[in-house]
């Protein structure tokens, strides 16, 4: 039985080149299905990686209760003072609490790809701002001087938007700024931002002494409980305390879900279309070999080997289709930079990421298409009557 099955399967696979037109169609159509699925998944996981990568467990972020997003939040100078003495916050070598009051405003940048304006975050931070981003690294130039209209820009901003080269003079809002440095935070959302000193933003944008958020470096991830308890028991504070990771996970959800909700149904719809194609191709393959299969039956081969052989053919073709789709998507899309409007109402630059996990899912989808598409034709192959030997 095993010998028979192997023999018929090999016979089948070796004859694929004789039917190359239909076989190639099957491979390519399945490749396109997998390509569409992986394209969407790469977009979703790239976006997620960028936003999630920004969140750290030992940084706490505090917003006004109910604000949900930094942009809507508002914290007064008095509240910041109360937070400076809160428990659970790490201290700098000089003994100051490691907290950073921050305020961002929206500025227009010109996208390189489309030459259209898009919202960029211009963030003012405190002295300890960079300490809140563990992967912060000044790639070029120097940090901004407090009190002067100087900017350090994220690497992603420089890549996607025009006019942010080191030394450039930039007009944002009603003011001229000078780019004095370029920073990286390892591809996180902060790379899509422009930073300057907090006081400068408060001044130039008439924000008085209020800020939007306060970030604090915790002594340990568990210390957030102590901080939260302090904030809840202090009647003068109406703030929500979150770990930065939890904050970013919450704000990434919407966009990634939207992409996935669009991607999967599309891929499944296309898979049904390709399924019909694969079914057809397998039918043609079985039809073309009716005589051959009947002859095998006549000389004593069973129906089961014929069934297995046809199934193997279908699945092998589908597998190759999946692989071609995955490789093509990887070559075309992996690392491609794109940007979209994030929950903060500013652009988030991210890179498409074709992950191994997504490739596995894509290939599995391909093989399901192959299996379903091959099943009925394979049954037919198993049931070819002996008299079909005389077919023309």
């Amino acid at each position, binding site marked *: 039985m095993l010998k028979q099955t192997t023999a018929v399967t090999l016979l089948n696979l070796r004859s694929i080149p004789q039917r190359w*037109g*239909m076989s190639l*169609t099957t491979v*390519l*159509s399945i490749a*396109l*299905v997998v*390509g*569409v699925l992986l*394209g969407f998944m790469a977009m979703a996981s790239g976006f997620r990686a960028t936003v999630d990568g920004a969140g750290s467990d030992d940084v706490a972020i505090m917003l*006004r209760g*109910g*604000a*949900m*997003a930094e*942009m*809507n939040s*508002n914290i007064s100078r008095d509240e910041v003072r109360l937070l400076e003495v809160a428990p659970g916050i790490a201290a700098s070598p000089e003994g100051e609490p490691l907290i950073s009051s921050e305020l961002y*405003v*929206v*500025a*227009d940048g010109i996208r390189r*790809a*489309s030459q*259209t*304006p*898009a*919202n960029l975050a211009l963030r003012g931070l405190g002295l300890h701002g960079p300490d809140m981003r563990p992967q912060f690294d000044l790639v070029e130039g120097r940090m901004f001087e407090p009190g002067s209209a100087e900017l350090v820009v994220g690497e992603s901003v420089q890549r996607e938007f025009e006019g942010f080269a080191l030394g450039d003079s930039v007009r*944002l*809002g*009603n003011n001229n700024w000078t780019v004095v440095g370029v920073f990286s935070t390892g591809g996180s959302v902060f790379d899509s931002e422009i930073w300057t000193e907090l006081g400068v933003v408060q001044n130039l*944008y*008439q924000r008085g002494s209020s800020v939007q958020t306060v970030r604090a470096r915790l002594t340990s991830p568990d210390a957030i409980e102590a901080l939260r308890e302090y904030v809840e028991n202090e009647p003068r504070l*109406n703030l929500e305390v979150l770990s930065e990771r939890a904050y970013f996970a919450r704000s990434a959800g919407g966009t990634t879900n939207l992409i996935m909700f669009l991607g999967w149904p*599309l891929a499944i*719809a*296309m898979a*049904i*279309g*390709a399924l*019909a*194609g694969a*079914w*057809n191709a397998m*039918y*043609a393959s079985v039809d073309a070999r009716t005589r051959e299969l009947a002859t095998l039956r006549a000389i004593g081969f069973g129906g089961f080997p014929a069934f297995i052989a046809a199934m193997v053919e279908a699945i092998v073709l589908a597998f190759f289709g999946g692989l071609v789709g995955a490789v093509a998507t990887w070559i075309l899309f992996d690392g491609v930079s*794109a*940007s*979209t*409007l994030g929950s903060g*109402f500013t*652009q988030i630059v991210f890179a498409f990421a074709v992950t191994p996990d997504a490739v596995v899912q894509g290939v599995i989808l391909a093989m399901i298409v192959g299996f379903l598409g091959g099943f009925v034709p394979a049954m037919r192959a198993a049931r070819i009557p002996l008299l079909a030997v005389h077919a023309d």
Partner: protein
Amino acid sequence: MNDATLVRKNLFRKRLRAVLLMISILIAFLIYGMLGAMQNAFSMGTEGAAQDRLVTVNRINFTVALPYAYWGRIQQVEGVRTVAPASWFGGYYQEPQNFVQSFAVDPESYIEAYPELVFQEDQRLAFIEGRTCAAVGQALATQYGWTVGERIPLMSNIWQQQDGSQAWELDICAIFDDADGTYPTNYLMLHYEYFNESLLFGRDSFHWIAITTEDTSQNDRISREIDELFANSPAETSTTTEAAFNAAFMEQFGNIGLILTWVIGAAFATILMIVGTTMVMAVNERTREIAVLKTLGFTAPRIFRMVLWEALLLSFIGGLIGLGLAALAAQGASAALAGFLPSFGLTWTNALTAIAFMVALGLITGILPAWNAMRVRISEALGKV
């Protein structure tokens, strides 16, 4: 038996194969129709009245506010008919996840600037009169099951009142619809005065100002004059047509059009290959029959036409069913997504483009087999064993 019958019989001679091909084609047109409808939702508000209306926002960015006084000053620019200021309210209902698109407006000027909104006369007057009144779009009212006369607390995720509360109590006085289904009705309007008087911060400012003019050919001049009016002030303005403003905003989400084009391209490439190779194969199988037809006196052009018609028929059956399903599905999806996207559906342009695609698909997949069929040589074909 005429040619049409022959074409039909040929197409369905292997019924399963024909059905499978139709499913492939159906799926491609379903995807095309759904994505087309979705794109309509995104491009909504970039045509019609929006071409004539002007929008003034802060030049820094539309999220930055404009002073209250601009309302009166813009009114004095020559040729301006109505000036309708508005502010983001950032509303949500009960839970922060239940986002409610909401603006604080001056009701009288807003309704005048947006004549495409349809009100019942008594409700319109009630909305203008009642200080705590809100007017709710039909789509939004359906989503939350709101009816006229109801009182709802609407929370803001941006604003705070002096007493620390973030909820504004609103009476639903009017439910409005749009004149012809091309404008979104998934938002809510409340009185600017009611909103403004209790604000803790950010009082007496607007986020955007919609302007209609006496003569739309003067729009360029009026835009320029408005922006010159506030040049070199702390809040410089940028005035464009509403259509341009909306298009620029959608552009911020990324190149949605390009992504949709890629997907539709992939779907059509798939069926083109599947249908194309199958048609070639189907005609090859019939070589001997075609030779018989030729022997019976069918001319080569006639055979060419018959094969081409077969491909077109296949493409049209699958395509039209797919397009029909897409129209139905778009209606369903539009109802389900009422809170996020304005209502959307297929337009005549979508349908006509789809039909053009069906013709193209039929011709492309039919031409090679038709050519092969036409060139069948009787002696060779019938000589084959």
